[in-house]
């Protein structure tokens, strides 16, 4: 434990406040949007990243001074904000509440990839044009940039405050946030106000991006994801939708992180963010300062998932498809094709798990990759350290994933809709952080190598075709397992819970129990997929089951149709095979992917095969 001298304390305080200022700027934007549109805007991080790039272009390419740079950034981001409102929200307002949420995820995918295409994925150096001198102020050393960041944040916050307090438009914005319908009755064009809100939020985010670019001395396309999470955490800390709360939450998060790093080291930084995020969600969902406000009412039950008549896949098609899948290695022994489909089967298991938890039971999970990781590590460790036979370690790994994952998710059960998405996102990250930092068990970043290969009854399964069949067989067993549950009273109960929690409770459905059952059953299937993957790869580390896998899996489910098992498999095949088809388009692959998600949400929110 390092010693804290007064000077250290003061310096860390400055560090924490500076970074906290930027978190606050991001959080304010998210708060404005949440307040006015009741939407968690996943594309906000991308706006911030684009703001940083615009600023970088102005300063380093065009050699502009900071003043005009900030103006250009503000204008560009405002336009982008309006565009996001148009694409991601306006047209989807009458759709199920899940639609705009997913649309913003799609937009952020597309924007991130677009920037990567234009500016390459490499980080770009963004030297601060300010002098590097530091001034000692009463024992605290402050740099010019630190001061600038503080000044700009405070100015922005003050200007926003003045805008909201003293201008007609500001009043209209607040009025819309407080009571949309009453605001309309005062003659406020709430759609225009909503666009304005996105613009203001985007300007703040963009300015935050420029400053963080200078502060971190570089800009890079992937900076959006982390910023978005930090913004959410800060926002939740201060109370979702509250602007003063966002400022305080941002500063607090900056301080907590900085002192956390000061105590334990940099690798623990994100752990703090996510533990805070989950802790606040669970213990005090109104935020530390949101006591007076009630939690905003959830979207109307039954509208979170679109009503639809699912496409009934005839049995002969299912059986025909299965037969074709079994025979595939005889038709083509091309290992490339078989590997793609092996991956598809493994992804289909993840998708089945997500479709059970999210589609059937209505718990929007963005952390399902955590179950993969637990399953993979548990099975690998059992096989390596205890020498368990593969069959046993696979099953035990899946069981441990189900149990441990459900236990970790337990605190989320009291939350609903958008909050579940945020909390599970956090839980997925926490699992990843634990894997990273619990070196004694997981070997940290070095990962587990020489994991025993797949085998059955002692016979190793190492050829491509047998692995393919093994994966297919597991998928079939998992699907049968899930199908059987869906045919039992559990399927009915889960779906009832998804449609209307209140009515379900009134008929004796205890929500915690059935949410837990969904996570146990889904976690088992995901865990099995993860365990299989670990043995197939023979090496895993913390990056193997990356967080983006969760979102990919969720997209498969949305593509196929929520709760629709055939849809999950179709979605998995499509999204595993499509990127391979688009391989020649390498760079644009994920751009297309984001656009597809956006179009899907817009034109067929119930997915290809429809919600079951």
């Amino acid at each position, binding site marked *: 434990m390092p010693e804290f001298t007064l000077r250290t304390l003061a310096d860390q305080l400055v560090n924490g406040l500076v970074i906290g200022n930027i978190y606050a700027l991001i959080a304010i934007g998210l708060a404005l949007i949440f307040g006015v549109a009741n939407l968690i805007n996943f594309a906000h991080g991308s706006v911030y990243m684009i703001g940083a790039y615009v600023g970088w272009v102005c300063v380093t390419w065009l050699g502009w001074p900071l003043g005009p740079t900030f103006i250009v950034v503000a204008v560009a981001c405002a336009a982008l904000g309006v565009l996001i409102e148009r694409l991601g929200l306006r047209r989807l307002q009458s759709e199920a509440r899940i639609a705009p949420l997913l649309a913003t995820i799609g937009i952020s995918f597309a924007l991130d990839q677009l920037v990567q295409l234009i500016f390459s994925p490499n980080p770009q150096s963004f030297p601060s044009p300010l002098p590097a001198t*530091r001034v000692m102020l009463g024992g605290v050393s402050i740099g010019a940039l630190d001061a600038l960041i503080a000044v700009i944040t405070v100015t922005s916050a003050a200007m926003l405050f003045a805008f909201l307090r003293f201008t007609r438009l500001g009043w209209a914005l607040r009025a819309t946030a407080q009571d949309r319908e009453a605001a309309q009755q005062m003659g406020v064009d709430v759609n225009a106000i909503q666009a304005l809100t996105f613009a203001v939020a985007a300007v703040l985010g963009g300015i935050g991006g420029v400053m963080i670019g200078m502060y971190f001395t570089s800009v890079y396309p992937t900076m959006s994801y982390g910023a978005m999470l930090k913004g959410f955490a800060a926002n939740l800390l201060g109370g979702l939708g509250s602007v003063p709360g966002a400022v305080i939450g941002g500063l607090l998060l900056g301080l907590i992180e900085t002192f956390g790093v000061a105590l334990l080291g940099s*690798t623990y930084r994100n752990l703090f963010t996510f533990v805070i995020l989950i802790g606040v969600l669970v213990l005090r969902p109104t935020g530390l300062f949101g006591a007076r406000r009630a939690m905003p009412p959830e979207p109307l039950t039954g509208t979170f998932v679109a009503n639809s008549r699912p496409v009934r896949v005839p049995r002969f098609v299912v059986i025909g498809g299965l037969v074709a899948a079994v025979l595939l290695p005889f038709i083509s022994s091309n290992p490339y094709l078989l590997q793609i489909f092996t991956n598809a089967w493994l992804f289909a298991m993840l998708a089945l798990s997500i479709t059970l938890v999210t589609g059937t039971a209505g718990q929007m999970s963005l952390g399902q990759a955590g179950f993969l990781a637990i399953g993979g590590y548990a099975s690998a460790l059992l096989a390596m350290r205890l020498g368990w036979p593969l069959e046993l370690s696979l099953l035990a790994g899946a069981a441990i994933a189900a149990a441990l994952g459900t236990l970790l998710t337990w605190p989320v059960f009291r939350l609903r809709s958008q909050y579940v998405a945020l909390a599970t996102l956090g839980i997925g990250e926490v699992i990843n952080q634990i894997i990273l930092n619990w070196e004694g068990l997981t070997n*940290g970043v070095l990962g587990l190598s020489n994991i025993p290969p797949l085998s059955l009854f002692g016979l190793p399964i190492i050829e491509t075709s047998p692995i393919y069949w093994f994966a297919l067989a597991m998928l079939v067993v998992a699907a049968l397992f899930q199908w059987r549950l869906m045919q039992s009273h559990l399927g009915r109960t889960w779906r009832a819970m998804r449609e209307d929690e209140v009515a379900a409770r009134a008929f004796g459905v205890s929500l915690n129990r059935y949410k837990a059952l969904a996570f146990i059953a889904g976690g088992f299937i995901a865990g099995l997929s993860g365990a299989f993957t670990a043995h197939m790869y023979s090496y895993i580390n913390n*990056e193997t089951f990356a967080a983006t896998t969760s979102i990919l899996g969720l997209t498969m489910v949305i593509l196929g149709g929520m709760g629709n098992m055939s849809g999950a498999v179709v979605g998995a095949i499509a999204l595993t095979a499509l990127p391979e088809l688009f391989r020649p388009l390498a760079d644009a692959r994920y751009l297309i992917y984001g656009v597809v998600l956006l179009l899907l949400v817009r034109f067929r929110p119930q997915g290809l095969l429809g919600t079951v």
Partner: protein
Amino acid sequence: MNRFFNRCASVRRSKLNLLSVFAALAMAVSACAVQPPPAAKLPDQAAPAQPAASTEPIYIGVSGPLTGPNARYGVQWKKGFDLALDAINGKGGVRGRKLEYIFEDSQSDPKQSVVVAQKFVADPRIVIELGDFSSPASMAASPIYQRAGLVQFGFTNSHPDFTKGGDYMWSNSATQADLSPALAEFAHNTLGLNRLAVFYLNTDWGKATYDLFQKHAQKIGAEIVAAEAYLPDEKDFRSALTRVRDAQPDGIVLISYQADGAQIVQQLATTDLKVPIVGASSLHSPDFLRLGGAAVEGVYIRGQFSPEDPRPTVQAFVQAYRAKYNEEPDFFAAHAYDTMNIVAALIEIAGPDRKAIRDAFTKIKDVPSVIYGKVTFNPETRRVANPQFVDLIVKDGKFVTWDGSQKAGR
């Protein structure tokens, strides 16, 4: 009622669409799978190179990141490969045939690297595979290459377990066992630094390097007063720098990659800690200079080659690289260049035969190398023995060989 019929109609339509999309998809994937890339006809499966095909190029598979967070390394690879191939093919290729490579973008993601591996092992034209970039991606694909008997030349894979994956796994990456002690000796013995603060990238590479570094530093009598691990996506080092400052080091060691290394140095410049900085060879890249700007001036690097090295191998590489790309070569490009030359040497001995190429690793001796001087593989570790090091310093925005003067001159 109308609405109802419309709905029925739309459902039926969508089902049709779905089936046709699905069918098209399956066909397209399989078409992709069996169709060779342009410019080549697919020879019979598993048949060895036919004399008739002897004018065809010999193909090398490369699995690496061209998109995603590690894309910049793949781009550097390409530059190194192309440069080496210019020379090799300019001289008529190997055994009278041109060498070509097929680069598949894996994003350095294990899910994709295994697919790429299957694609390569199934393509009989591929005689050796290079990559992947990160250890999770490489090692997940290893079983496939091992099984198929195709050499996986993981030339950046310093993970100690990589070459233990099988006798088809080879690497010319300097291992931590070589790199770490050299770095420690440079900092302590050469530069005379006693109280070291270390930043290391918390990946398999950085962690393993640090562990050995720490051991060796202790052995030679240097004290490590602070060790800061950080994740690849870490950008905010200020809190950690404050910690380091409080530890009062007389030198800072960076076990970093270019981007994060540059950031640490830049953020360090905004603090009042002014001590010499020593970096690992991975920092030897124009990216480090570009990203670090003025702040990296005076940073010491124990590199593996110097652009000023008078050796003809080095000069040929550096000159050609400058001419072709109008920039300074970096460690990754040099490494890729070396690797392609090794591959050429292997094929020269073994011919376009997968197994023979594996066996050739023990036969090649003293292949000229930018990084190692001369490369000979150790059949036990399947790695290169005794890499050489050269001490560099950043001066006027360039890497120059450190002449031993201006010690600790920052």
